[in-house]
């Protein structure tokens, strides 16, 4: 295996960790509402939601490249479809967790939570791209997806 593939993997991991470390700034850069953002912060959701936003796309990319790993499913639009499902799944899980935590705290921020998750699509999609470029090199049938090496 080429050394540059390990560099891609290391960069992917580093970018993911950086995203987690700077999660509050990253999220508040794209969505911040008075009241809601403070409660989100106090409830510890800036820890939980980024973990979901990392775990689901990385798992989806791993499933695509190593479990599905099929020549009949190696076109760019197949990859895009998996990315879309991963992003959708991320925001659905994220919204459910957000809603559950806020309900336990007696908070009612349905519209803001939905808007936050829509904004989170940006990070979920980006995370899938990062995960894909970090791990695709080791896939036996899909390493050329979405772009040839």
């Amino acid at each position, binding site marked *: 295996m080429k050394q540059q593939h390990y560099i891609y993997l290391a960069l992917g991991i580093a970018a993911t960790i950086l995203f987690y470390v700077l999660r509050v700034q990253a999220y508040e850069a794209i969505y911040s509402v008075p009241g809601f953002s*403070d409660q989100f912060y106090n409830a510890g959701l800036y820890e939980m939601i980024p*973990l979901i936003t990392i775990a689901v796309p990385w798992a989806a990319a791993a499933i695509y490249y190593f479990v599905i790993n099929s020549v009949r499913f190696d076109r760019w639009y197949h990859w895009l479809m998996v990315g879309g499902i991963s992003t959708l799944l991320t925001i659905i899980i994220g919204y459910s967790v957000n809603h559950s935590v806020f309900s336990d705290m007696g908070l009612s921020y349905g519209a803001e939570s939905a808007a936050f998750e829509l904004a989170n699509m940006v990070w979920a999609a980006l995370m899938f791209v990062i995960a894909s470029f970090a791990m695709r090199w080791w896939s036996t049938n899909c390493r050329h997806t979405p772009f040839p090496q």
Partner: protein
Amino acid sequence: MKHLISLLLLGVMTLAVTSCGSSPLDKAIKRVLVQQDTTQAQFDSICSIIQQNPDRYKQYLDQQGQVNVTELQALIDRIGADLRPPIRWDIAPYGQQELSLTIYFERSGSMVPYDNAGDRGQLKKAVNDIINHFPGRKVNINIVNDNIYPYQGSVDQFIQDRNIYASTAGVGNSAFTDFQQIFGAILKAQDATNVSVVVTDLIYSPADATDVSIDKILNEENSLATSIFRQYKGKSVLVHQLMGDYNGKYYPYTNRPVEFRGMRPFYLLVIADTPVMDRMAAQKDYSQLMHPAEARNSYRFNQSEASVDYCVLPDWKDNAGRFRVDHKDATRLTKCEGDKTTGVLCLTIAARLDGLQKDEAFLADARNYKLQSTSGFELSVTPVTPDMITGNNKMYLEGKTHLITLKGKFAGPRDQVSISLPNEMPAWIAQSTSRDDTNTAANGFSTTTLGLKEFLDGIASAFGTGGNYTTITVKLEN
């Protein structure tokens, strides 16, 4: 493949380390703060987490295995400071010693008519309420006039005694009240965990005052108060004025008794070390002592400037224009901008003012606040009512007592708004003072006390009262 697995494992471990930093103790404290459930029960549950894991939390235990309140407070402060808005929970009262109460019940001639069998007995009720609602178990009662004499019965007997003046007849000399002797002895005897309450009409009636001018008596009273209290600058005195039925002989300064039937003021003087007074002000358990429901007026001497909990409401119905509360410093507002149409910036501060020991009328009156700002903001004050608190704003409003609204045109680029509550002698003291009490039919006799202002001015002079009760600061930037 080995490299691939190693790198992935490294990534997962790094994420695990950065995401799982807080301990069960940290989580429990954060939960209490976020839910604003800062009660004795929650304090006890946090202590039990520490005591059940002595090895893990040994820095929060002292050598005897008891929770080190100072260390725990530091941890709570750290966690509270990281919340939005920052929250402070003072746990010091939970680890403090129980307070004792000493009642000094004046039994001079002019006090007896406050407790007639046919009247309502407000004076005795007020004293009974203080004893009954005092959280500590140690209560002592003394009878005072020319000196201090221990009450011979039990506390229960005192409470049940329907005619306390009859049962204490013959104790001391009820012909005069020796303020110097009484207050000197009370202040000298008081220890750091004691609260003294003097039940008195605050009428200075020295021996041999016949043919002495009223000015001379009142000047003497003023000097006397200063000379007694100036020796105890670490003490605080809280004066409550109450009204009670009065039926019997009243002794004016000329010492020629006259019959009077009607209402008369009487006073509860709560005396304690300043930290004890601050502690009682912060704890609801002492509300009967600090804010008796029947009190007509109150004022605390030697009240140092207190820092109160406050925060700017980021989302409130009265807000106009735009601003953003800084996440690191909740008193700093950035991106301040007036409303696009009117140019008006309106923001609301939720503050907890109940620890200032001022009555609601005083706190809700915007004229009592001093506002400093270069933008010419106008200030209004509204009490927080339960219907204002919703799930979404609970974090900001829970525990807060007043909403201070600032409205004006922010000129920018910067403004530091300072809202203070000046500590000034209240008007009721002068309004409740008379300089001649010989005519019981005079207008205002039933609501005034001879020489009250002189005596209280003397205390104020001893303590050097002044400054502010509190100051709230908000920094604005655009």
